[in-house]
């Protein structure tokens, strides 16, 4: 270890004598694989942005959608359903290959025309509208949509369509001319992109090392290397930060923030994350078919009290399924969800609730404060006369017909209500096909206008119609946008940026500074 450190230090001295900076991060979780295409987990989202680029970047410092050139330098709609993009020249992948139109078409079509099952799954819920991409010349491509697309830039900024190298990927296993499933599997263990940091070591579920990629097309990475290690226990993460073993830690619960604040040599940064912790209710459970029971379950929950008690008031309690990251479609005036225990009691009476037991399923650790919130909800339900039992199990029960209520999260996969509510609650989407949510033609019609209209006001009013339906026959209650925190030693300056999807560890130029004194 010592020798290794010396060797690294020597190399650093020879290469970049002035600014040798290495960052050690202790994360609560490290991914089991690294492939931005198939992944949309909260754990995985941490790791892709440093290594990969999309065609269209955005200004990540703001929640507003300010698009800026990424691997494409310009993009124009040539008709309702076709976009032509000029690609940036002189971009190289971290393995030395030059990026061309072939790589871009390959990356896009691996999703748009997916043959690999995990890609098909991810593609279906958000990229359904894209027919394919084709090469025009070495640095020009076209993307064809099936219907007029209001969200072109948003959907080209997605993690799923980050660009990967074609020849490298195809050559990983088997026939180097063909993209086999096993190529994608191999890729997820040795990923290569165009971003400022190359993945130089990856032990799934355990450790990830990034090294600065000197051939990066944009501003050079500020750090020489970053090592992320999985340290699941919060006490151990805090201690490792205190002893100086690591410079930064993830997933600091609100209850630990006072400790961090009391230590002179560390500080915490956090934000209300673009993600809802939600409670889902099974519309089709025989005992919950009556919408009034589910309305009561929802009305009985004092979300502000949860925020005050568990999140120190730092979470955001929404009045409807909306968050300010949605830009023009942020609709805080809608009042879809509220706290009204008296009304809850009345509804229970009306519905003839006989005190049957409602089970609330929760994972023990996955959601910060999830288990505490579940127990608090149980108590709040008891206040209005709802009898409940908590069932802690890491198993996903959202597709179990016996499931009555459970916690879940609705992350913002991209900055539009389609990227949050829209992915989860689309007609025929995951919630419906898991059998706990029903839609009809009217709902589908509203959804279609919300999804495809090019007029913002039409989209807003359609979204309001959807929220109205959710209120009348509720399948979900967004509890809050949790306040997530990171802690770091003094000398490391980093904040979670509002323009990112949740949990991204952005270590690109401008996003982090580390004083080299340490």
């Amino acid at each position, binding site marked *: 270890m010592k020798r290794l450190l010396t060797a690294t230090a020597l190399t650093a001295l020879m290469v970049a004598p002035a600014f040798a900076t290495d960052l050690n991060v202790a994360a609560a979780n490290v991914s089991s694989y690294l492939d931005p295409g198939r992944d949309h987990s909260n754990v995985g989202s941490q790791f892709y942005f440093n290594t990969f680029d999309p065609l269209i970047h955005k200004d990540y410092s703001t929640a507003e959608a300010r698009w800026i050139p990424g691997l494409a330098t310009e993009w124009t709609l040539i008709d309702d359903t076709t976009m032509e993009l000029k690609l940036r020249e002189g971009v190289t992948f971290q393995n030395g290959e030059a990026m061309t139109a072939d790589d871009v078409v390959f990356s896009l079509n691996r999703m748009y025309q997916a043959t690999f099952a995990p890609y098909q799954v991810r593609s279906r819920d958000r990229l359904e509208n894209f027919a394919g991409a084709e090469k025009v010349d070495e640095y020009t491509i076209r993307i064809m949509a099936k219907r007029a697309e209001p969200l072109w830039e948003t959907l080209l900024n997605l993690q799923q369509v980050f660009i990967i190298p074609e020849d490298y990927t195809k050559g990983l296993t088997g026939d180097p001319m063909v993209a086999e499933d096993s190529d994608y599997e191999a890729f997820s263990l040795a990923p290569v992109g165009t971003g400022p940091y190359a993945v130089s070591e990856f032990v799934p579920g355990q450790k990830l090392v990034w090294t600065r990629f000197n051939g990066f097309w944009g501003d050079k990475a500020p750090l020489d290397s970053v090592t992320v290690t999985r340290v699941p*226990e*919060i*006490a151990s993460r*805090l*201690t490792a930060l205190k002893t100086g073993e690591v410079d930064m830690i993830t997933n600091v*619960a609100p*209850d*630990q923030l*006072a*400790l961090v604040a009391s230590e002179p040599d560390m500080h915490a940064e956090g934000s209300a994350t673009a993600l809802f912790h939600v409670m889902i209710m099974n519309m089709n459970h025989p005992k919950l078919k009556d919408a009034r029971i589910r309305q009561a379950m929802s009305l009985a929950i004092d979300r502000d*009290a*949860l925020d*005050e*008690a*568990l999140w120190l008031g730092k979470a955001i309690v929404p009045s409807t399924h909306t968050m300010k990251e949605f830009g023009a479609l942020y609709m805080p005036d809608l009042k879809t969800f509220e706290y009204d225990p008296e009304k809850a009691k009345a509804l229970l009476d009306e519905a003839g609730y006989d005190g049957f037991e409602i089970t609330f399923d929760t*994972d*023990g*650790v996955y959601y910060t404060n999830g*288990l*505490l919130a*579940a*127990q*608090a909800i*149980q*108590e709040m339900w008891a206040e209005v006369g709802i009898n409940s*039992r*908590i*069932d*802690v*199990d*890491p*198993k996903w029960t959202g597709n179990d017909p016996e499931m009555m209520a459970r916690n879940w999260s609705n992350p913002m996969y991209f900055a539009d209500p389609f990227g949050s509510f829209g992915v989860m609650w689309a007609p025929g989407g995951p919630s419906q096909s898991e059998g706990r949510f029903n839609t009809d033609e009217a709902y589908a019609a509203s959804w279609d206008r919300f999804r495809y209209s090019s007029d913002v006001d039409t989209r807003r009013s359609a979204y309001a119609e959807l929220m109205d339906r959710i209120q009348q026959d509720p399948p979900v209650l967004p509890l809050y946008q949790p306040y997530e925190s990171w802690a770091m030693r003094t000398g490391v300056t980093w904040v979670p940026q509002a323009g990112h999807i949740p949990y991204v560890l952005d270590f690109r130029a401008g996003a982090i500074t580390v004083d080299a004194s340490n």
Partner: protein
Amino acid sequence: MAAIESSLSPNWTMALRSLWADATPVQRFALILGVVLVLLAVASPLIAPFDPNGQSLLSRLRPPLGFERAKPGYLLGTDELGRDMLSRCLYGLRLTLTLAALGSVIGLCIGGTLGVLAGVAGGRTDTAIMAAVDTQIAVPFTLIAIFLLTILGHSIEVMVFVLALDGWEKYARILRGETRKLMQMPFIEAARAAGATPLRIARHHLLPNLMSPIVVQFTLSFSNIILLESTLSFLGLGVQPPTATLGAMVGAGRDYMPTQPWIVIAPAVLILIVTFAVQTLGDWLRDRADVRLRPR
């Protein structure tokens, strides 16, 4: 054997007096402690000042009385949901003792029977029983627990069964070994030669001599089960919240050790006291049960 017979005889006062006279101060202390713990557990619904599951979200994480920010009336402070620590400790103690007692008794019944059977019968019976024992030992118990709890559900009954299952193979293995050793002894061979039935041999010759390992294993198993339950809670597999057991309180509270340590200290100290009492009493009984160590 006199010791056992006297302590099991109906003449309780005599037996107790002789026990007490023979005990060291530590053993006397442990005995008193054990009695107090059992009384507390039994009486917990009567003496607990609050509902153990009653929350008060606005006064979470208050320290025990005497510290800054303490909440009047809450002797041991409040936990992460503002519940009274003292009440939860009392109810937790009650359930923990119940789980441990049931678990170790069931484990003893299963394991003891199989172990002695294997030792006495030998041959195929022995092979089969020991194969089962080997299998159980070789598979990480946490995994067995995960599967049983998933397949059978998370009820308290299943929990008792899971906890008992962790101990039986230890009884079986140890008692089989001891039985085999005893079976070679001259006095058993003599009894067999005299035509005693296996049952009679087991009752009159084996059991008294097996008391020592049984008692030791029982006390170990008792504390083991308490610890196992806390480990299951650490892994998120313990009793379902909001139910309090000492293990569940320690398991769920561990994240607060750097900041609000009383949440873990109170139940951990109780676990310590229970274990101390059980093991000290176990050692004592064992020494008394062992005829060779009687004062000569």
